[in-house]
């Protein structure tokens, strides 16, 4: 019985593939060990670890948003630009309109959800494939962000407490020895909430079902279009959180930022064991995938590897990470 309940704890965390995730975790550990061995004094310092955590927040949250979409066997190329759009809109709410902070935060998330809804409607009503619908949205949102801001960043300097969203440290206030920034906390809270939603709610169930066999879902009498829109809206809302994180971190909304982030996010998701053909995936895996990416990049920088070689190695390691993930699966 105790064995059983332990299993279910793991299952809860990992969506029932505990062993595989443990192994994915192992490759993350391996990376960390290698870099620690090569540059002990620079890599394994508190500052650098916090730096790694911090640098994973935005991509991590975007990757979580993408995980839902990818499990439905869709894809969202607009997440990076949507994040920026939400950041810009929070700037509009807080700086231009002078709304109070909580409203601005809420507003950014709502904007994300609404934009996600639009993508979802384009996919379900206009029957445009997700790749194209979100590619179109990517271009469109980039233009809109630039239009809204007049291609100039919006600065949050006068918004009391805005930079604390990502940079403050609630944990550090309580345990001064652990100055973990709030952004990292937010990443893990979003991850935990999303893991529960994915595995324990109807939304999560339909996410998997849609990715597994959409026609079967339709024939089961489920309103496929409605749920798809909801999933894209939900994912958009998470992009809103990412927008707040990056805006708070930079204390500004940079209207031209964000393109290209979707590829990093998707890479993290796939490295984390979520299948691009849908039906399979976990949030824990995605988080591990995001950390594999950021540890890799940080480690290469710490070792002062030339930037060209960083690109070559990142490319290689993305391929190899997914390859070893396949190996693990095959062995199972």
């Amino acid at each position, binding site marked *: 019985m105790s064995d059983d309940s332990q299993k279910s704890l793991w299952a809860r965390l990992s969506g029932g593939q505990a062993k595989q995730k443990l192994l994915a975790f192992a490759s993350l550990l391996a990376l960390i060990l290698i870099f620690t061995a090569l540059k002990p004094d620079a890599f394994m310092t508190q500052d650098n670890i916090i730096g790694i955590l911090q640098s994973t927040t935005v991509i991590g949250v975007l990757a979580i948003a993408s995980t839902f979409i990818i499990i439905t066997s869709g894809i969202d190329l607009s997440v990076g630009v949507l994040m920026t759009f939400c950041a810009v809109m929070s700037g509009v709410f807080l700086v231009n309109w002078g709304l109070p902070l909580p409203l601005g935060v809420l507003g950014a998330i709502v904007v994300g959800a609404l934009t996600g809804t639009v993508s979802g409607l384009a996919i379900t009503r206009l029957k445009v494939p997700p790749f194209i619908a979100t590619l179109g949205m990517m271009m469109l949102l980039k233009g809109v962000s630039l239009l809204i801001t007049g291609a100039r960043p919006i600065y949050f300097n006068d918004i009391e407490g805005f930079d604390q969203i990502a940079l403050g440290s609630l944990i550090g206030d309580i345990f001064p020895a652990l100055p973990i920034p709030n952004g990292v906390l937010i990443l893990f809270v979003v991850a935990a909430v999303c893991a*529960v939603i994915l595995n*324990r*709610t*109807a939304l999560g*169930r339909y996410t*998997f*079902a849609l*990715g*597994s*066999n959409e*026609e*079967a*879902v*339709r*024939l*089961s*009498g*489920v*309103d496929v279009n409605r749920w798809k829109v909801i999933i894209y809206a939900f994912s958009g809302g998470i992009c809103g959180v990412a927008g707040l994180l990056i805006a708070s971190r930079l204390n500004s909304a940079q209207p031209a930022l964000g393109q290209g982030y979707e590829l990093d996010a998707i890479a993290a998701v796939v490295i984390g064991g979520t299948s691009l053909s849908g*039906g*399979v995936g976990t949030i824990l895996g995605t988080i591990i995938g995001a950390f594999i990416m950021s540890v890799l990049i940080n480690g290469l920088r710490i070792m002062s590897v030339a930037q060209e070689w960083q690109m070559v190695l990142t490319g290689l390691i993305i391929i190899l990470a997914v390859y070893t993930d396949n190996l693990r699966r095959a062995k199972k």
Partner: protein
Amino acid sequence: MTALIAVKNLSKSFPGVKALQDVQFDLQAGEVHALMGENGAGKSTLMKILAGVYTRDSGEVLLDGAPVEITSPAHAQSLAIGIIHQELYLMQHLTAAQNIFLGREPKGRMGLFLDEDQLNRDTQALFDRMHLPLPPQTRIGDLTVAAQQMVEIAKALSFKSRVLIMDEPTAALNNAEIEELFRIIRQLKSEGVGIVYISHKMDEIQRIADRITVMRDGRYIDTVPAQTPMAEIIAMMVGRKLEASQKTIPDTSANEVLLEVRGLNRGRAIRDVSFTVRRGEILGFAGLMGAGRTEVARAVFGADAIDSGEVRVHGKLLALKAPRDAVQAGIGYLSEDRKHFGLATGMDVESNITLPSLSRWLKWGMFLNRPAIHTVGQEMVDKLRIKTPSLTQVARLLSGGNQQKVVIAKWLVQDCDVLIFDEPTRGIDVGAKSEIYKLVNDLAAQGKAIIVISSELPEVLHLSHRILVMCEGRVTGEVSGLEATQEGLMALATRRESQEAVLH
């Protein structure tokens, strides 16, 4: 008495196909109404209209005598119309329980979270009622086609429908499971449920049906009582008389051994399987669902990696790294799951027919010889009477039985020495079935070595010169085709090592 559900003057066209023309049909409460007709007669199309999958072009649908417009599968469910589709519509990555209750999940506290325990309990209760020894948490992808079919049936039952449509529910089932299904059907009948039963298996129809409606080429032919002699019904279906073929078993003992399999092992699914097939011989494989027959066929064909064993064709050892090795050695394999493994569903009929043999239809090793492809495609369409508007019709749009014929055609064109037919007549109508039997016999007479895997014992008995019986991955017996009886084969097929049933 007003009919539970009735249709009048119903018509439906697809691009290039008039699937239904002025069809009528009615179903009373508490009856089993069989719907019969050749492949492509329009049975599934009619039922899909009732289930809200397709919308009709014209005509009327009456529910309890009142006209209704069934707009979606969800709407059909709300009208208490349930359907078991001919093709499996299941989510491979979800568990059996999750599949069955998709869209109707029990909610736990606060109505926010799913109550997985309740879900599994409900499913277990359902399975218990069906005497189905399957854990509700099993992933669908890990089940055999037969077990998946049982899950589909369970799902349809879970709706507590007043109208239950069963579109070839037994295509993948063995006798024991069919018995179970019939028990359930009788029970539902007594509860006043009206059941539409579509099957190509005549004996089933006679046992379970109350009335029979026959369709041909999208038209309504007649509705008759189930006592009507089968020959008459078949004549209505095909529009002609069928000649019953006589079984003769040629002596092939002196012929060359074309296929030799020695000590084949693959995990628990195949355990030390050995057999030979001679030129001109038809070897039957009998067994219960999950006995490992498909596994053996796939292994021999190189589709799955094996742990150990040897396969020889013409005495030559095969490398068997990929199906290509088997095909080059002259083996053809007709899969039991045509949708996933048999057809390039998005390609047209002639492309599918020439896929394995494409290198033969090339000029200068590169360019397609289109006239030749066209000719051979037409030849096959004529020979197997494949019902298709044209050779360039997309295979996905053919009826199930005609798809199966396309798969057969592609191996006929490839001209193999060894042909493995895995459930060759699954979903095939009586007319076509007898044609395929004739074909198999002809191929054997031409000197090919043939393996027939079938879950229909009469089929195995009718076709085979020699029968191997499998259980739990082992060969449990070999009988000559003349001496074999259904009872004898069943005894061998249930000779288990352990008492535990291996379902997945």
